[in-house]
């Protein structure tokens, strides 16, 4: 397969980019008084404004031709129908099936997976109901009121981000629960948390697809040790049965660890970790929001799936977002992408999208095994916008890097709070959101007397920005938003010809760490690593010996 960069559509876009390069975004607005209407797109509770990007309608048509050339239609169908789109691991990527309604069906490997998904949701509902009714009892017989999710990567970031984003939508259950997240391998999050919790009323959710993730198993072992030292009077088996739930694709391993089948929620190898918050990995979300809230999140994502699958490219939000990113990365040479939610509730969204985008598309080899000769996933980072304004916006406005920015904000907030001051804060927040994208895109051309300013006070602008407005932040709209980014990532991967569903780049480090663990546990051994590593090991051993 020839690289995408050799195709006619790609070359066409390069020429188009050369022609357009002399145009500042402010020129593009001057040229076209209907620009906003022509470059604004809506589906469900989301509005996407692309008018502050460095492009015009011709660009979109040329990009659409690139998508056609990449057989995007066929790839979308392949994704939805369970084809083995994850070629290096020879399996499907069916996160869309996790949010399909009960009435639909999809057969994969001879199994109707929609039925299996809904059986699993039913199991999840039984567990959630039992906990919310106060009938999940710990070793003393008191009801569980605290959940600690132990997981890392996809088993942590999605549920964590969603629970924080939707905390206002907490379930009105009779026995509401506190939900905490622990991920770091070094135990620092866990040890601090455990000092504040009551073991008799704490339930741990061990979320690990493989149930071999060392980060999670190390934290789980510490949690179980804490329970064992709590002064309980039950047997060890029963202690595990009453205080641990496993969410895993490897039920055999979970059983071996001591978790009974009734406490195991399954998910499947066709669910990638970073696409798994819709599966049983979303248990903490369901515990926080209630099952109905969780289902509403799934409905939002499903609405985006339908939009993505059935809408022509030029009004298809995920396709447009992906194509605009490709335009910025490959034709405008922009390799940094800032995620700027103007909403404190979305504080964990940048970290979530860092994994989704960079673990999916941080690749340089095509599906056919060839090394690409173009850029793929940019460096992606972000922060709550109003806080980032006091941190890295200086670089965005006056640095040497071109950066594309996603502004994300809710139109409505605090309207039923009864607080005029909070509503004022939201207006202040919106004003800042719109002001920053305006200044980044248009520069100081928006001022009358900009050219009289000294050089260090000038804003050159021309940083391309997209704005996503949610009607309001709720389970449905968040579901739509996350599915939007998932599909955007997939479309980019199709254009670049890479596989977004594997992550071979995170494997080798684990093996190397295992070999180093031996050296750390046996200070007397002679390590045979590189000079730097040997030196670092020696330095640590010396310190540990000295202080013992």
């Amino acid at each position, binding site marked *: 397969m020839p690289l995408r960069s050799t195709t006619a559509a790609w070359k066409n876009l390069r020429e188009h980019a050369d022609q357009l390069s002399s145009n500042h975004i402010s020129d593009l607005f001057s040229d076209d008084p209907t620009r906003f209407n022509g470059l604004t797109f809506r589906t469900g509770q989301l509005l996407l404004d692309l008018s502050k990007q460095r492009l015009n309608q011709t660009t979109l048509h040329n990009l659409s031709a690139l998508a056609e050339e990449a057989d995007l239609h066929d790839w979308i169908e392949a994704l939805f129908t369970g084809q083995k789109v994850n070629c290096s691991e020879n399996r499907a990527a069916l996160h869309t099936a996790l949010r399909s309604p009960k009435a639909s069906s999809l057969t994969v490997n001879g199994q109707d997976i929609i039925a299996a998904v809904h059986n699993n949701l039913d199991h999840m509902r039984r567990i959630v109901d*039992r906990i919310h*009714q106060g*009938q999940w*009892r710990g*070793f*003393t*017989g*008191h009801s569980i009121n605290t959940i600690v999710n132990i997981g890392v990567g996809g088993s942590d970031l999605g549920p964590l981000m969603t629970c924080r984003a939707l905390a206002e939508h907490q379930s009105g259950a009779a026995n509401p629960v506190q939900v905490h997240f622990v991920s770091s391998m070094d135990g620092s999050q866990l040890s601090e948390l455990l000092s504040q919790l009551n073991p008799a009323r704490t339930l741990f959710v061990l979320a690990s697809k493989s149930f071999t993730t060392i980060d999670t198993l190390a934290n789980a072992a510490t949690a179980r040790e804490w329970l064992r030292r709590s002064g309980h*009077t*039950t*047997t060890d088996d*029963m*202690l595990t*049965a*009453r205080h641990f739930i496993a969410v895993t694709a490897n039920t055999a391993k979970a059983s071996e660890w001591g978790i009974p089948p009734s406490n195991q929620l399954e998910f499947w190898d066709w669910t990638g970790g970073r696409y798994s918050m819709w599966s049983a990995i979303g248990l903490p979300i369901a515990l926080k929001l209630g099952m109905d809230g969780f289902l509403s999140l799934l409905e939002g994502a499903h609405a985006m799936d339908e939009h993505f699958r059935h809408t022509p490219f030029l009004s298809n939000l995920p396709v447009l977002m992906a194509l605009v990113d490709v335009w910025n990365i490959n034709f405008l040479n922009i390799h940094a992408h800032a995620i700027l939610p103007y909403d404190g509730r979305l504080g964990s969204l940048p970290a979530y999208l860092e994994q989704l985008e960079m673990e999916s598309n941080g690749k340089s080899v095509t599906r056919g095994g060839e090394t690409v000769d173009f850029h793929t996933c940019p460096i992606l980072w972000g922060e709550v916008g109003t806080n980032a304004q006091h941190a890295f916006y200086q670089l965005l406005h006056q640095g040497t890097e071109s950066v594309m920015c996603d502004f994300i904000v809710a139109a409505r907030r605090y309207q039923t709070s009864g607080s005029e001051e909070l509503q004022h804060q939201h207006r202040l927040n919106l004003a800042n959101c719109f002001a920053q994208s305006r200044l980044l895109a248009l520069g100081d051309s928006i001022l009358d007397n900009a050219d009289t300013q000294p050089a260090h006070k000038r804003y050159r602008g021309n940083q391309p920005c997209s704005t996503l407005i949610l009607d309001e932040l709720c389970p449905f709209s968040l579901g739509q938003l996350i599915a939007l980014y998932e599909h955007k990532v997939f479309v980019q991967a199709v254009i670049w010809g890479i596989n977004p569903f594997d992550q071979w780049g995170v494997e080798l480090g684990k093996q190397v760490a295992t070999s180093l663990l031996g050296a750390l546990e046996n200070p007397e051994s002679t390590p045979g690593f590189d000079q730097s590593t040997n030196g670092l090991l020696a330095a640590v051993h010396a310190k540990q010996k000295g202080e013992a």
Partner: protein
Amino acid sequence: MKITVWGNQLLAWVAAAALAESGNVVALVADQTRTLDELLSKTANEPGLSQLIAESYESGRLSLATEQAGLENTLHLFALNPDQYETACLLAQKLADKHKQQLLIINQSNFGVGSSDKLQAFLKPQAQQHVAYIPDMLAEGTALRNYKYPDTLIIGCEDDWGQMSLKALLRPFSKNLKQWMVMSSREAEFTKFANTGMLALRLGYINELANLADKLGVDIEAIRDALITDPRIGPHYLHPGCGFGGLNFQQYIEALAELMLESRSSKLLETVLTENEKQKELPFRKLWRHYNCNLEGRTISLWGLSYKPGTPSIDHAPSLKIISTLLAQGCIVRAHDPQALPLIQEKFPDEPNLVLCADNYEALNNSDALLLLTEWPEYSSPLFDQMHARMAQPLIIDGRNLLDKPLAQSLGFTYYGIGR
């Protein structure tokens, strides 16, 4: 005297019956209760009450009246539920509109401190229209006796004419009277709160001590016996057990706890309430630990479902929580109570794993444990050999410390009490 009693709860029924018995002509305005039969069926569980109502009705001194007719009298007794404060205000307004001269409203409803003053604001004091407050001191099971033979009457009324009218009305009930205490209605309302709160604190404290005794391996009953010899402490409301219940008691404490929290940020009574809810499940927790945190498929017997002996009432009774919890853990529950079975049946319809037994020994068939939750006298000296023969596991969890522990143990039972 002619008097209208407003309300459809125990106090209203008892007051109407007792006042009619002593010669007054009583109009009872009881919401939805329109016929004598309905009234008799509602009052059937309170000893002596329905009989007295029937007699008074027969004599013509007690009638069930419409609101319109009820408003005609100039003497009124409000025995409304705590959530009917709006109704009380409306009635006071209507009465003030209707009557130009003397009017006395005796408020016995639990609307909180200051509410009688608010009702007074609707009336014309210059025309001798007054609200007096008398706390409701009835206990279910002995309500009629409490009303007719009080030791103490607390009268919240500062008006001379009002006091005089009250004295005349209550004269027939003053045979045993040791104290006639007059104060402002606000003080009287506060006194009722203070009284209830004190009792709740004593119960909360003895239960806390009992739970501690459990941990320390001492018998709370020995501690209690010693405690109560101190005349400053005395014996009342110091029985450890699996939590208190009852509609009125709970309502008063909740209202006082809320008042303390809001006006003083004090969690004193809120803590008592929270701990009491936990205490209600204590027998379950003892069972849970005995069977290694797994009760799936066990048959569990319950003796005593009402919140206290002598009444069928199950309001806030520990049995409600215990039944729900046992069913959720996959148990078969076999339950007995001398009076409360119909109400439990109503509360838990369509529960195939809840078997209500008319005979307390029948409830023990094939049982893995007996949980004793209400200290009905008939449970206090049971036929242990018959119990042993029926039970699959001779395990007793005595939520009221009713049984003789050494005796039960000597007969082969495993026995857990509350703090012993």
